[in-house]
């Protein structure tokens, strides 16, 4: 599950180690209320933020249907944690190595088509997954909340690095978000801004791996 250089560095830490700086909570909390029936969709790593949201929705009296999807079996985690806070859990893998073969949007569409009244969909995961969840729910007119993850620097609204466009307006994801109305998000802009430092990210990784190589 470790992709970038910093995540890998974190992955090397052991219990008792320390990091320089940590702050929070930043942004606005997810709005929890008794909507009725909430479908929670977690893409890969996002089972981590989705699980506490599902739990809170359940505690608020909602019926919670959860969908957990990942590319393959190895990338599935916290299945039981999410199952324990949901009325129903559907697990998918792209390659079929675990659970149902397919993307998360397929069971999502089926639930919406089944006639079951869904009041809210919460979808968190890679941007492209959230975009396609939004496309899936839009024809059904179901309110859909996503958690945007643009690049951020300070996280308190002082720099504007995390700016996203929602409903034609510029918003700071770190202050106004991270939750936004999925049907209003400019997904193409988000994807473009997330690609800003791809080259530097690669360079940092190569540089670090080279240094690790020297030390090991």
């Amino acid at each position, binding site marked *: 599950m470790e992709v970038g250089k910093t995540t890998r560095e974190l992955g090397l830490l052991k219990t008792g180690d320390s990091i320089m700086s940590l702050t*929070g909570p930043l942004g606005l909390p997810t709005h929890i209320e008794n909507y009725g029936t909430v479908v929670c969709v977690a893409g890969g790593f996002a089972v981590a933020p989705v699980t506490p949201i599902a739990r809170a929705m359940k505690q608020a009296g909602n019926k919670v249907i959860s969908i957990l999807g990942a590319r393959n079996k190895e990338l599935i985690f916290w299945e039981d944690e999410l199952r324990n806070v949901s009325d129903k859990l559907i697990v998918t893998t792209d390659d079929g190595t675990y659970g149902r073969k397919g993307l998360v949007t397929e069971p999502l569409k089926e639930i919406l088509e089944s006639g079951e009244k869904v009041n809210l969909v919460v979808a968190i995961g890679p941007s492209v997954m959230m975009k396609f969840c939004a496309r899936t729910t839009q024809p059904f007119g179901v309110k859909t909340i996503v958690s945007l993850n643009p690049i951020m620097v*300070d996280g308190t*609204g002082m720099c504007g690095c995390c700016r996203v466009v929602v409903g034609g307006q*510029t918003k700071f994801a770190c202050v106004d978000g991270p939750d936004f109305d999925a049907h209003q998000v400019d997904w193409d802009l988000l994807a*473009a801004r997330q690609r*800003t430092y791809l080259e530097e990210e690669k360079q940092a990784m190569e540089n670090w791996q080279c240094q690790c190589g020297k030390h090991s």
Partner: protein
Amino acid sequence: MPRQEAAIRAKNFKEVALGYTPEMAAEEASRCIQCPKRPCVEGCPVNVDIPEFIKALREGKMADAVIALKDKNALPGICGRVCPQESQCEGKCTLLKQKAPVAIGRLERYVADWERQNKAAMPPGAPLPPLTGKKVAVIGSGPAGLTAAADLVKKGHGVTIFEALHVGGGVLMYGIPEFRLPKEIVQNEVNFVKSLGADLVLDAVVGKCDTIDELLNNGYDAVFLGTGAGLPMFLNIPGENVNGIYSANEWLTRTNLMKAYLFPNYDTPMRVGKKVAVIGGGNVAMDGARCALRLGAEEVYIVYRRSEAELPARREEVENAMEEGIIFKFLTNPIKFLDDGKGWVSSMECVEMELGEPDASGRRRPIVKKGSEFIMKIDTVVVALGTTPNPLIASTTEGLKTTSHGTVVADESTGKTVKDKVWAGGDIVTGAATVISAMGAGKRAAADIDKFLMGK
């Protein structure tokens, strides 16, 4: 003032001004005629005893010079470098009309730097009064907060400074570049305030981690808000969210606080293109432009909608920028950004401006010249239009009054806000201004808080 040569300094982040030698300092100090009127003192926002410290310096009594200087100004190493002396002390100097004003700022810097390098030669500071048992929460460790904290600790009060970032100093650390204000000097000043007895808590985002009311209900007898004006203003024109368009805050924070110029040793890079346009004409715009040069840009433009005479930046920084080869495009304003088809900015459509009658700020109003649209090819933009206070404090604090600009309403002479036990000073009250005016506000608020705490 000896400086690094323009062509060399435009490629490094080392301090531009090299400082006076002892001989230069002695010579400049003897220019001061110690006039009885002392208009310089009045011109200083914190009323430093300027003739006193200059006299001690002239007589070689360096420790006395330090004591006279620091009596009123807790951060002289900073002020000597960044104050707009031309519109403050030096602008009032009796010698202004004759030859040239005494270079008060440079002498201040000399004395402050001497102290930093000769700590052992300083007598121990005056002992602090007994603890009053009162506690004050200072929000923000920028110039206003540091000054208020220092003054309150010196009165015997317990002080905790809450800083949102991972390092103290506020705009002194993230905003003003290394080559104008070395970060080592800032940390030296922060450590001085800590050494007096103030606690500095980092990564503490008041408004998120704790609210003001939570602090007041959990042992703090008063709160001083010194959170500054950290919310960037954008142009709000088409294309502004395309890659390669940065707010000046992001540009400067990545460069100075997060050391973009040391990538990949630091993980916060800055993608600097070949042609950088910095929109704006204040100190931040100059800083942004000069950072762009040092980060490797080939051509750097300042794009300003008024003319040279209206530039609000400190005169010395404008001169430094021009010497370093930054191209100034006056009477120009962007109206649209265009991208290269791959999401990166590739050009900017601008209009020419002309100056009309003065507006509310007293400066001549810029008016668009119809039909003057033209394209400037650039691949990086820094928007340095100014900043307003971050709404985080106001939006999470009941009972605080704010203006339509987002600034907190506070009494000019005491810093007292309409909320019980809460004072405010610096950019959060005035909007983006200077280090020294923030310090003045910190001093005035500390004095009023002390009066309140001691029941006077």
